[in-house]
């Protein structure tokens, strides 16, 4: 192992549902403070991969290791102290306040009858502050905007004091400024708390800008893996998505920039 140890290792992973195999021979590693993007068309197995990493599903073949030990050897509580997931959204009518929902992130640390103690409250306050929703603590999810709800889910994940964040299209329902805001927050957390992040997204440009490495999936197989510059190329995108794009370099960051090309004649 390298000097920075892998927190997550995915080793020749195979998995499927009744309908057939979804993931075929996936290999992946994640280190502390590293952000890995997972991109690919619908049905390529991106979200399924996250669920295997967090142990929600058991693999058909191969295995996922957390800190060198197979996922299956951990209890749910133990996994929840290492890995936190941020989903796309939460039910708008969810009947708990923002603070109560964020407090649920402490549950992997609480005993059977224990309620949140001083230490827990400090973590919860910290998570609310960091995501800038402390002033919304007593509000309900339906009183928040989509971006604020997303920050709440990130705050709940932070309350778990995890080492790894799994994010499944966390910005797909958000408008541009909220997208930028959430992605900035994730980058800040990654750097300040040395979190490992696996980031599933449909947005190739966000993957290009934010991720240290990118994995491109097609029909459950890794087609390309490496630095954004190596993976997000015209050839790869045409192979995987089957559509025409223009890829150039963002002059400010030097990262690849993808522009879809509509079929000829659209603009008259």
């Amino acid at each position, binding site marked *: 192992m390298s000097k920075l140890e892998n927190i997550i290792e995915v080793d020749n992973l195979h998995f499927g549902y009744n309908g057939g195999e979804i993931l075929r021979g996936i290999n992946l590693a994640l280190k502390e403070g590293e952000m890995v993007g997972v991109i690919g068309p619908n049905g390529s197995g991106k979200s399924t991969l996250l669920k295997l990493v967090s142990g*929600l599903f058991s693999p058909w073949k191969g295995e996922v290791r957390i800190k060198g030990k197979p996922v299956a050897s951990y209890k749910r509580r133990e996994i929840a102290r290492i890995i936190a997931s941020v989903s796309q959204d939460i039910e708008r009518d969810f009947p708990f306040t923002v603070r*109560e929902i964020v407090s*649920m992130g402490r549950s*992997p640390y609480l005993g059977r009858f224990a*309620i949140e103690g001083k230490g827990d409250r400090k973590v919860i306050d910290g998570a609310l502050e960091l995501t800038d929703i402390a002033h919304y603590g007593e509000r309900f999810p339906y009183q928040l905007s989509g971006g604020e709800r997303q920050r709440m889910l990130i705050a709940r994940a932070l309350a778990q004091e995890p080492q790894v964040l799994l994010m499944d299209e966390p910005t797909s329902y958000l408008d541009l400024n909220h997208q930028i805001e959430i992605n900035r927050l994730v980058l800040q957390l990654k750097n300040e708390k040395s979190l490992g992040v696996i980031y599933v997204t449909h947005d190739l440009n966000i993957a290009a800008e934010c991720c240290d490495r990118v994995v491109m999936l097609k029909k459950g197989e890794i087609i390309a893996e490496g630095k954004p510059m190596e993976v997000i190329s015209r050839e790869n995108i045409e192979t995987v998505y089957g559509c025409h794009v223009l890829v150039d370099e963002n002059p400010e960051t030097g990262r690849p920039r993808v522009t879809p090309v509509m079929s000829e004649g659209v603009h008259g």
Partner: protein
Amino acid sequence: MRSSGKLAGIALLALLSVVVGIVSIAIGSVEVSPSEILKIIFSEEGRGLPESTQAIIWQIRLPRVIMAFIAGGVLAVAGASFQALLRNPLADPFILGVSGGAAMGGVLAIISGWAYSGSGIQIFAFSGALMTILFVYFISRVDGQIPKYKMLLAGVVVNAFLSALIMLILTMATDRALASALFWLMGDLSGSSWERIVGSLPYLIAGLAVLYMMSREMNLLLLGEEQARELGTDTERVKFLIFIAASLVTGVIVSVSGLIGFVGLIVPHAARLIWGADHRFLFPASLLLGGAFLTIADTTARTVMAPTELPVGVITALVGGPVFVYLMKKRLHE
């Protein structure tokens, strides 16, 4: 509302429950004043009152009020638990078939005449409930998991099947047995006794303790099973325990009081409007609110058309429905 406010509300509700209890004991064909009741229960002076009054209080009204309170409270907590387990606001303690099984057992006992010997009806009803719980559990289990839709469907089908069987049995029953069975099916606390209370308490306490231990997990279950697991919950174990504990306490209550509807469905919703959805507060609040509500309903049932007693289930729905609609409207306007 802050936790301290919620706790204060629960304390107030507890106080109110005691008042409801004393007033309910006082009401009836023989008028006894609240101060006389307290004397009879708590002090030697009560010995001065007529023997018959003492007997009415000790042997009839007190056990009945306590049984009503326990039944209402437990049904409300079981209802809240099933609503969390199935993540379905229409769930009630009877949704997974416990009621059908218990009703089948109870009706069999009444029709066959065993109901009139000792605690025949309780034993039959409880056995019926237990068998149905196990049956529903085993038919809804897939690969060691119990998906909520499977549970719901299994419960609904079992309930429908057993209702049909009950109808079949009732059509063949004598008039006297039919009346007795129908009354029991709509909820009947007239047989309450210290013996029944003491006999059912150990099961109820065990079941409620398990449910209360699961209260934080139930909050997480409301997020959906996937998120609950991601937050560290062993959801299948939790669901199994909730299912068994809530069904068990429901079976015990049905066996001593028949099928009292509405309490287990509506009281948790009413408590949620006031105390919020956090089960750590919702459980004690539902227990007290359900208890007080059924105590009032049962007192009404036995007095409003005295000497004829009404089935208490009729009162819970007739009174509870409008009260709930009022609460809901009021809350929405705030």
